[in-house]
């Protein structure tokens, strides 16, 4: 192989990144529009495009049926956008967790973040208080607060002087995770009539999403992902080991701190809308890495968008798979992500597992 070929291959690869991201964004937009057509009420495509056009002031409003408009704008659109936000946030958080921990099994469970959210949510469901804070339901606020508190708890227990070694972080995280899920189990046992609500929250779903939920988590998701992008090259270097990253000019402790806070913030924001949706944070980064390679500069944006697409499609399935049996029944999206995502991942993994064998 000639040397110029190596160089040009490299530059061709990196210059293709923008195109890949652009295509994925396009795919996401198409997914969102197609998903608007999915649901119990049959609304023809031209009407959907018309409704969307009306929202941005392009189409004469008189042509649209107001019932269909309400279904699309007030029910389907927020739900689909929630899928986009949650999918993006969980996948991005997964990239950050796996990068910082240098461990392919790392996700929001390792720092106890998911468990913290689960405890917060379960308590608030049990309390039965219909409290609304800035337009948000108590469950959402409690899940968010629980997630962030668990992360700080684990982080502070793990600290050795000014450093936070990954090993202690992992061990403390797992211990706290087990403890908190034990608390959730305890709450489930005494829950009585509320048990169904807790279980439903634990699997995750989008059935009650409103516009105000979107507005509440949007800033967290955007800030989280944009800020994480500042650290993509540091993530590459952290994969070489903390000492090596340090030798190559990374302020390791600060990078770790910022990245873990961002990942937990993203997770907390996501689960506060929809409960614990599994699989996305763990598997989407993997899946993307199999296809696109390990470089975080492209891995983070692509995982984020693929996570969004994946979750929107899963939610579509959640809405339709059960309709032949009971027209109004829908499955929790968390079940769909695992039921369909895991086999797909295994299929891909079988094909490309060589690159995983160390």
């Amino acid at each position, binding site marked *: *192989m000639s*040397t110029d070929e*190596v*160089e040009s*291959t*490299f*530059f061709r690869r*990196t210059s293709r990144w923008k195109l890949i991201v652009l295509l994925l964004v396009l795919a996401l937009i198409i997914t969102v529009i197609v998903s608007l057509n999915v649901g119990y009420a049959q609304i023809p495509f031209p009407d959907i495009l018309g409704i969307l056009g009306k929202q941005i002031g392009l189409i004469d409003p008189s042509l649209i049926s107001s019932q269909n408009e309400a279904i699309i704008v007030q029910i389907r659109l927020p739900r689909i956008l929630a899928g986009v936000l949650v999918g993006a946030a969980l996948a991005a958080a997964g990239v950050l967790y796996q990068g910082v921990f*240098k461990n392919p099994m790392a996700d929001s469970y390792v720092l106890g973040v998911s468990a913290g959210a689960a405890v917060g949510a379960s308590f608030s469901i049990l309390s039965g208080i219909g409290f609304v804070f800035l337009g948000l339901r108590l469950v959402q606020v409690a899940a968010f607060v629980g997630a962030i508190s668990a992360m700080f708890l684990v982080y502070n227990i793990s600290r050795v002087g000014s450093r936070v070694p990954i090993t202690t972080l992992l061990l403390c995280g797992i211990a706290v995770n087990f403890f908190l899920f034990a608390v959730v189990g305890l709450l489930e046992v005494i829950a009585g009539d509320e048990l169904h609500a807790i279980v439903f929250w634990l699997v995750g779903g989008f059935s009650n999403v409103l516009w105000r939920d979107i507005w509440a988590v949007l800033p967290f998701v955007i800030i989280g992902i944009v800020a994480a992008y*500042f650290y993509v*090259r540091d993530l*590459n*270097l*952290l*994969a*070489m*080991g903390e*000492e*090596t990253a*340090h*030798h*190559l*000019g*990374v*302020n*390791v402790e600060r990078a770790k701190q910022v990245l873990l806070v961002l990942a937990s913030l993203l997770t907390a924001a996501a689960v506060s809308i929809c409960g614990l949706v599994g699989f996305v944070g763990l598997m989407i980064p993997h899946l993307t*890495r199999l296809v696109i*390679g*390990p*470089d975080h500069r492209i891995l983070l944006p692509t995982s984020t968008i693929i996570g969004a697409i994946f979750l929107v499609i899963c939610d579509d399935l959640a809405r339709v798979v059960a309709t032949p049996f009971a027209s109004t029944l829908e499955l929790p999206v968390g079940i769909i992500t695992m039921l369909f995502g895991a086999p797909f991942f295994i299929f891909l993994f079988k094909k490309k597992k060589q*690159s*995983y*064998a*160390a």
Partner: protein
Amino acid sequence: MQHERLVANLVLLNVDGVECRYGSVKVLEDVSLSVEGGDFVGILGPNGSGKTTLLKSISRILKPHKGTILLNEADIYSLKSVEVAKQLAVVPQETSIGFNFSALDIVLMGRNPHMKRFQMESEKDMAIARKVMNLTNIWHLAERPMNELSGGEKQRVIIARALAQEPKILLLDEPLTHLDIMNQLEIMDLVKDLCVKEKLVVLAVFHDFNLAARYCKSAIMLKDSRIFAAGNLTEVLTSENIKSVFNVDAIVQKHLVTNSVFVVPLSPQKTSSYKKCSIHLICGAGTGTALMKILLDEGYSVTAGVLNVLDTDFETAQFLKIPVTTEAPFSPITEKTHKANLDMISEASLVVLTSVPFGFGNLQNLEAAIAAVERGIPTFVIDEVPIERRDFTKGKAKALLEELRSKCAEFVKDQNELLSILNVSVENLKIAKEERDRILAHLKPEEVPKETKIRSKDEKS
């Protein structure tokens, strides 16, 4: 003038009174050193003496509890990570790569300190990566995933990454562990070259004295967390220092070909609880060197002679504290020394004649062997090199050797055969010697050597 300008551009690393601790355990104590551009410093010391800790404190992994480390007069711990990474690169002992990056990706990561946050690799970065990968001979591996490379290839990728940082200081922590000998020399030649031409400072931990000796201008030797010796390599790498720091006997000599010091560590002396018996070596020109050490280790007491002072075998004997009958350098054996040698031989329970070359100067050593046989002392002749090739006495030596053969000296083909015979026949030897004593007592009672002492030792075996 030019020299002065050069000096002004040199980096300076100053380590002053550094003390590092893990908890309450001091792992580095009162370590000071100062290096500047073009220095190649070897860090030597046994396991746990603080070598790696010293590199860690310089590379800002382990902050010293006391003392300062200055990089160009700035406290290295007050500098930003990126600033340090532009000047200082580290090749660690072990590396693990998290995800499956290609070799080129990894070398390009060495450019990180020189890139802005959202900058992509430029043509210049690529050119540098290509240059260092060509230097380390891995450009052909550029697109291969790191996980598929061999240990040696990985190590060269890591070294290339360090060089891609364009550092002024390079810290190497046993960088050659995974490399075969050719790769070791290749990489070290490259580093040495950069050190000389680009005034790179190299601080390298070595376990191999000879590699250190070959490349380092100066060295520090650590013992129990402290500097035991520091300075020019030849002052530091002495057999006395090696003995007191590593507790190993070693021969330190200047090598004729490489012109650097070379070290031959000797395996720790096996302390036999008894002396098997005493063996007298008739040798010279290095033919007895290996045997001396082996026989000592086996528990024999060894004597040698006649050896000229300055002969290789003489120096070995000196080092191993073996009694020797000596003759002045480059002088023929005189009657007086020959007699002294015969006295020494008669103390021995066994005589070994090595494949030493014979000239008129040492022909008497052959006569000494014949005398030994005549006195009934079991005599082994190592006939490894045909006598024709080592006889420089126009056949006289050959004739004497034939005489030895006719007098029933035991001929063996090499040293190994001798050793295998010795291992089985020590017991028989004792019996043979007793028999000889009886015969000698009949023949010349007054000439019986002082055997009683030797036999009393033998009896224990």
